[in-house]
């Protein structure tokens, strides 16, 4: 390694690696290790009791399922948005393009309150949904909507550059070979953007699992029903049950890590070809 580093055109492998490791350790590895260490203060039965309480289990289900649904919705509509932004010119395109990043910039609490105002049974949209008996605010649907909102930019921003670079000739080649528009999208365009789409999906999912601010306003936080896991962690921490909070944190960490690893594996599989 030292030999190849010496021969490299751009030197500095040692110092850049060292800096990266230090940087990652301070910002990322130490907090995570601290979290895990915290749980070592507990006995195994205590840990198990904390993480397997029915209320906590219900929150896992909601958090992961709602994140999964939100990320899936984003995968479809985020790709559509990216497509529209790349393929067409229309008045106000630049503004729409900028708006996509809004969920990044807006404090999540503001977004949460805005969503409640809109979707509560007295709100502009919730009012009409109420006529059909659909309750969005203070229900699982509300959680999904909030998690969809905050995940959208991830999919759009990862798919957009890949679509922009996509060679038009490939579509033309497909059409010349007799493929319909839909077949071309399914067999030529989608496979090309799949690795980027999976990255965006993973990011949106990861962001949704950890989201707190925008959800707690619209979900109503009803135990066993609309409580997300991050809320439980905050609640436990506020009651000075740091061990319990850390235990649930570790479970989330492990689950999120496994899921992200799986998505990365899929992504590797998709990009390996070509």
């Amino acid at each position, binding site marked *: 390694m030292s030999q190849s580093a010496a021969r490299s055109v751009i030197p500095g492998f040692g110092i850049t690696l060292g800096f990266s490791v230090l940087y990652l350790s301070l910002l990322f590895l130490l907090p995570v290790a601290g979290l895990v260490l915290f749980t070592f203060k507990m006995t195994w039965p205590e840990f198990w009791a904390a993480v397997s309480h029915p209320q906590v289990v219900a929150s896992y289900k909601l958090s992961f399922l709602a994140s999964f649904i939100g990320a899936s919705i984003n995968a479809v509509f985020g790709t559509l948005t990216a497509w529209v932004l790349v393929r067409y010119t229309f008045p106000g395109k630049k503004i729409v393009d900028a708006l996509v990043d809004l969920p990044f910039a807006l404090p999540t609490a503001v977004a949460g309150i805005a969503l409640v105002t809109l979707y509560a049974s007295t709100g502009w949209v919730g009012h009409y949904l109420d006529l059909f008996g659909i309750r969005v605010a203070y229900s699982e649907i509300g959680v999904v909507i909030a998690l969809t909102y905050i995940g959208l930019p991830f999919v759009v921003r990862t798919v957009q550059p890949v679509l922009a670079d996509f060679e038009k000739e490939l579509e*033309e080649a497909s059409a010349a*070979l*007799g493929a*319909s528009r839909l077949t071309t999208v399914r067999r030529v365009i989608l496979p090309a953007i799949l690795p980027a789409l999976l990255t965006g999906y993973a990011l949106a999912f990861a962001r949704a699992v950890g989201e707190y601010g925008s959800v707690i306003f619209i979900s109503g936080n009803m135990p066993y029903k609309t409580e997300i896991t991050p809320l439980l962690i905050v609640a436990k921490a506020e009651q000075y049950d740091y061990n319990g909070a850390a235990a649930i944190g570790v479970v989330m960490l492990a689950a999120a890590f496994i899921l992200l690893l799986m998505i990365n594996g899929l992504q590797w599989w998709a990009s390996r*070809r*070509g």
Partner: protein
Amino acid sequence: MSISIEQVNKRFGNFVALDNVNLAIKTGELTALLGPSGSGKTTLLRIIAGLEQADSGIIRFNNEDITGQHVSERGVGFVFQHYALFKHMTVSENVAYGLTVKPKKFRPSKAEIAKKVNNLLELVQLGWTADRYPSQLSGGQRQRIALARALAVEPKMLLLDEPFGALDAKVRAELRRWLRRLHDEIHVTSVFVTHDQEEALEVADRIVVMNKGRIEQDGTPEQVYDNPANPFVYEFLGNVNLFHARVKQGQSSIGDLQVPSPEYTNSEEQDGLAYVRPHEIDVFNLPQPDAIKVKLDLVTIVGPAVRLEVLAESDQQLIHIEQPKEQFKQLNLKQGDTAWILPRYTKVFLGEGI
């Protein structure tokens, strides 16, 4: 399948890509659309394919008006300059693509598709690449795969857009000879676009020279090369020396040199431009009657040929000459020497030229 193009016009904004183009292409012919960039040749090819729509005019295949037909219904094989292979598919999946996207009732069975793909890969001499991905192949190999993919659907015609444009010189020369042989084998009506006159002259049965959205000349390679219709075609089909000439009653005078121009027998005295190709000039080491006295300004040996840049003594005009090396060696001339030159063949166009 014959192609007929009738009064086709196409504009991109203010740019006129095609200006009232009429062209008929016979069944089984290999036609080259030759022209500089911006001449409209690619636009014309794309309009034939249906990848572009003409602003006005009619396209017919075998006398049937297909102007409004979508590209996917025209049954053409299209080959792109940059191959346009599907990167996420293996070579055999690429070749099979056109067959697998057919509606169920027209789609051949899996075994039939596999057999056909094998045959096509053998035809392009790349059977061993079946399970590779396009990124693992060289440019020349990719283009042959692209050709096999286009042929898989048994197209009524093959349209090739600068098919060898992205390849290096040697592969290019190899591939165009190969395309010529392939065409002799399968005889599918083919049109290819190129800006390389050598490529057009070597490969095509027929050359259509285009410039600024119009067709300048249309004929066999020999007709086009030996009898260029106008100065543009003359200049585009190879290097050329230009001389001012006075034309009068079937005679052109270039300086002191008189050349017969029988096509202008009845003309009054007027200005013209004489075109002489570099390899159609004889060089002498002794004075000759009527010959132009020149100084050898630069002698460059390019493999088997010698390129000379000479300056006419009378007006210092720069003249390019090309000779086989052997022939030049016998003259015993070197850079800086004085020599005498005589054009063997001169083509005079009236007016001040292009």
